[in-house]
């Protein structure tokens, strides 16, 4: 019981239910009186709706109701809001065109919601949806990002399809740095559009009780309180206390389940209208055209150096695709979470970045695992590796010449890094990857008639986005704190309520480790509750690798209050001064004596307060805390990837993948390694297999798992992972966050390795066998 739990490889509390089929995902929930919804979606990327004919569908068996945008307009249901206001370079607010829950006269991407059919059974709902006749006037679609500003207007009042033009940094100083450079490396990139594809499709069940005039929404969400806030305050105009949002077990999110989606609103609204519970579960083909996508940047980037490879300046121009509408946090991804990371791990003194965000007739784009930081890392680390090659410097050496070594470090792009040791992670990665033996392995590959390459990526990310006041000044329309509650039961066991949400991260275990360790209790005596607005006091949810750093800290602050109150109770029970009470792993002691009270005894006294300091203290042992961080956390690390390329087929095989990360203090190394493995696979997916293709009319060609290739087991290797540790300086756990690193650092490492093998300057992601083969033919 007294072995430290922080740092231990504790097996997960949640595993038993998932391994025995006892998990409860949204689609596993069946409510009394449940009906089913099917959406009629646009088959066109851009079209006017001339007429919707519902007669045939209304006569179909089992149909309870069919609703269109007209019903929503008549009911004064609002559009879906965007949570971050970006201000244009000319001081104007970004363009925020309406994002209706059901189309109002026009559709703007394939998959846009046109109508919803609710019926007694799912089959009846789908059958009737097929009978809804929509007469479209098809318009020219805007698909290409680079030419979007010249396309026909997608939204009224946004003539050039431009949401904003935004910039950061000192352009004049940057241009001056380039003017005196000994060498400039320039690259043009496409950061390919990705489709998140959590294996659990999104689902939502709306329920309404006439007796209480109250709603319940079960939804596959990463942040139920945010979902409730946005839906009640901005869309349905309901008081929050009348809406309960439950995000039960959630089968992966990766960002795609942060947002308030139209379907969530529609089933909630329809539940009251029909006085029935209404369930909707996405088919995978619907997920492809309705879940927010990720990335999708077109960038030109330049790095200026002196003759020794010391970085003098970086200049970046990016066009970011917002898709057809602004999703919940879309606007801050290619700005606040992207351009601010362009310093990377380096002392580059001046950086200028300009971002143009455009609307196109494609699915909305928002945060996907890493959210802006993978795009920034790709720019920086492809530039740095290419610069090393052009300057004939070792890629590790050019990084060492430019590493930040003094902290805190103020970058030229707003962030201030609190701590880090980039040499430590680079040196460890070089050793673990056996870079020294690469030349020999390359010779062996050449003997077999194959190519071999090695690539680095030394990434940094900013996690636990904060503080609220700073975020607010940058345009955030929400706070970025977290809430927690520690409820001690009369016999000394503990239930902890957290505003963070677990959808694979294992919070029920990690957070219980923190609580049990700090209170000195057995982990079996601690349970973590999350995902229900009626149980958890408040929450901002889980994204941006923030759960432990922000949510965990809120819990720690509540624990501190519990111990402080416990000391007062113990002092009374042992007739000692409060200042003489010490708490040590489950026991309150009077310093210098053998007098003790256990945690359980103190808890019992709080709830059966016969002998209790009623004049000074309330009974009970239950504390809340809200925590608003002082800064971001800055996880960083170095990844080394080694590939072999088949000259005949272009097939890339990852021979070695080494990842050394600095996540600060680690609570459960087993879970952290799992997070890294998963992130690496998603980044490898971006670099090797995942291609989102729209044709010229805006049809998503890669709209199923038959066409869109998320990595399979044979596409990825066994990973070599390790960590180094510089504790975060501004949270009590010293933690930084580990959820996104793998996806942030791996694409550049992999593409650096492939371009090294092929001896080419650049190659488009994903480096499929065909892309690689074509590149080899061109070079030959």
């Amino acid at each position, binding site marked *: 019981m007294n072995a430290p739990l922080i740092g231990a490889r504790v097996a997960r509390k949640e*595993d038993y239910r998932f391994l025995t089929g*006892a*998990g409860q*995902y949204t689609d596993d929930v069946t409510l009394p009186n449940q009906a089913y919804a099917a959406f009629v979606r646009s088959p066109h990327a851009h079209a006017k709706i001339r007429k919707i004919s519902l007669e045939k569908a209304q006569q179909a068996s089992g149909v309870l109701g069919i609703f269109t945008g007209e019903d929503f307009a008549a009911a004064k249901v609002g559009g879906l809001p965007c949570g971050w206001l970006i201000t244009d370079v000319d001081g104007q607010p970004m363009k925020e065109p309406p994002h209706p829950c059901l189309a109002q006269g026009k559709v703007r991407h394939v998959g846009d919601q046109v109508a919803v059919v609710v019926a007694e059974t799912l089959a009846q709902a789908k059958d009737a949806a097929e009978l809804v006749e929509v007469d479209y006037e098809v318009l020219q679609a805007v698909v290409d990002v680079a030419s979007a500003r010249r396309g026909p207007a997608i939204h009224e009042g946004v003539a050039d399809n431009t949401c904003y033009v935004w910039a950061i940094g000192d352009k004049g100083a940057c241009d001056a740095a380039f003017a005196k450079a000994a060498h400039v490396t320039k690259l043009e990139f496409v950061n390919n559009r990705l489709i998140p594809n959590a294996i*659990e499709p999104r689902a939502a069940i709306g329920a309404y009780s006439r007796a209480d005039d109250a709603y319940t929404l079960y939804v596959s969400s990463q942040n139920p309180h945010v979902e409730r806030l946005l839906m009640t305050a901005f869309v349905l105009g309901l008081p929050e206390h009348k809406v309960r949002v439950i995000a039960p077990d959630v089968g*992966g999110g990766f960002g795609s389940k942060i947002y308030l989606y139209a379907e969530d609103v529609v089933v909630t609204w329809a539940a009251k209208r029909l006085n029935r519970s209404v369930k909707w579960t996405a088919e995978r083909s619907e997920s492809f055209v309705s879940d927010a996508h990720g990335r999708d940047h077109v960038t030109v980037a330049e790095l200026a150096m002196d003759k020794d490879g010391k970085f003098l300046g970086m200049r970046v121009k990016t066009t970011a695709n917002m898709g057809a509408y602004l999703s919940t946090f879309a606007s801050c991804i290619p700005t606040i979470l992207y351009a601010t990371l362009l310093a990377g791990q380096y002392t580059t003194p001046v950086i200028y970045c300009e971002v143009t965000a455009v609307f196109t007739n494609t699915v909305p784009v928002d945060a996907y695992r890493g959210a802006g930081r993978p795009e920034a890392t790709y720019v920086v680390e492809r530039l740095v590796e290419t610069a090393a090659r052009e300057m004939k410097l070792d890629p590790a050496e050019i990084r060492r010449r430019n590493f930040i070594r003094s902290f805190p470090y103020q970058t030229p792009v707003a962030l201030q890094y609190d701590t880090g040791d980039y040499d430590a992670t680079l040196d460890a990665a070089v050793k673990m990857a056996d870079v020294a033996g690469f030349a020999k392995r390359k010779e062996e590959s050449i003997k077999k008639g194959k190519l071999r390459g090695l690539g680095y990526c030394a990434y940094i990310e900013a996690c636990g986005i904060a503080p609220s006041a700073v975020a607010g000044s940058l345009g955030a329309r929400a706070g970025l704190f977290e809430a927690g509650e520690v409820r001690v039961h009369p016999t000394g066991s503990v239930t902890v309520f957290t505003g963070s949400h677990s959808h694979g991260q294992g919070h029920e275990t990690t957070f219980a480790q923190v609580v049990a360790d700090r209170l000195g209790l057995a982990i079996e005596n601690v349970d973590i509750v999350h995902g229900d607005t009626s149980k958890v006091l408040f929450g901002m949810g889980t994204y941006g690798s923030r759960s432990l750093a922000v949510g965990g800290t809120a819990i720690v602050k509540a624990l501190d209050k519990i111990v402080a109150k416990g000391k007062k109770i113990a002092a009374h029970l042992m007739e000692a001064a409060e200042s003489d009470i010490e708490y040590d792993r489950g026991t309150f002691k009077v310093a210098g004596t053998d007098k003790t009270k256990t945690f359980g005894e103190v808890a019992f006294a709080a709830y059966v307060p016969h002998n209790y300091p009623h004049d000074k203290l309330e009974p009970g042992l239950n504390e809340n805390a809200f925590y608003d961080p002082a800064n971001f956390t800055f996880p960083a690390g170095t990844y080394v990837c080694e590939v072999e390329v088949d000259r005949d087929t272009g097939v890339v095989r990852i021979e070695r993948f080494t990842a050394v990360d600095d996540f600060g203090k680690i609570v459960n190394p087993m879970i952290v390694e*799992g997070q890294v493995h998963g992130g690496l696979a998603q980044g490898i997916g971006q670099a090797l297999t995942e291609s989102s293709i729209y044709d010229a009319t805006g049809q998503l060609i890669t709209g*199923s*798992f*038959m066409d869109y290739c998320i990595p399979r087991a044979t596409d990825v290797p066994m990973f070599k992972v390790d960590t180094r540790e510089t504790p975060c300086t501004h949270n009590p756990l010293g933690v930084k966050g580990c959820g996104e690193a793998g996806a942030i650092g791996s694409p550049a490492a992999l593409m650096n390795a492939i371009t090294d093998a092929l001896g080419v300057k650049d190659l488009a992601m994903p480096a499929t066998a065909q892309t690689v083969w074509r590149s080899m033919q061109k070079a030959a």
Partner: protein
Amino acid sequence: MAIKVSLKVNGKAVSAEVEERTLLVSLIRESLRLTGTHVGCDTAQCGACTVHMNGKAIKSCSIVAMQAEGAEVLTIEGVAKADGTLHPMQQAFKDNHGLQCGFCTPGMVMNALDFARNNPSPTEQEVRESLEGNLCRCTGYHNIVKSIVAGAKAMGGKI
């Protein structure tokens, strides 16, 4: 038109009224309320719906319920011992952190059971190839592969 299908699920005789087009996975999830078997795609790619039918792993989204008439079906709910003790393959997934969000896990375990029965000491590469029909977005497969290698060893060729 409603059709009655009778089969044995997890050792228990059951029957349900279904339509001709009802998929086996719908019968399992909706009629029998065994929600451990999941649906992750429309195209028989993800394997989250994998169950055993007459001793073989199949994708229950790819056959209609009527085809299971008279069959013996094993779902994830029937894998652990009656007293709740995890099956060695389930235990191996737990010990090796072979699951994160848990959504693909039942399909992974059901596929692994069938594979391991015929491959008591598989190599890493053989395990990867056996996962051709199962997608996971969380784990990067690293710990799933380790789990199946360990689980297969613990099973010794027997379910």
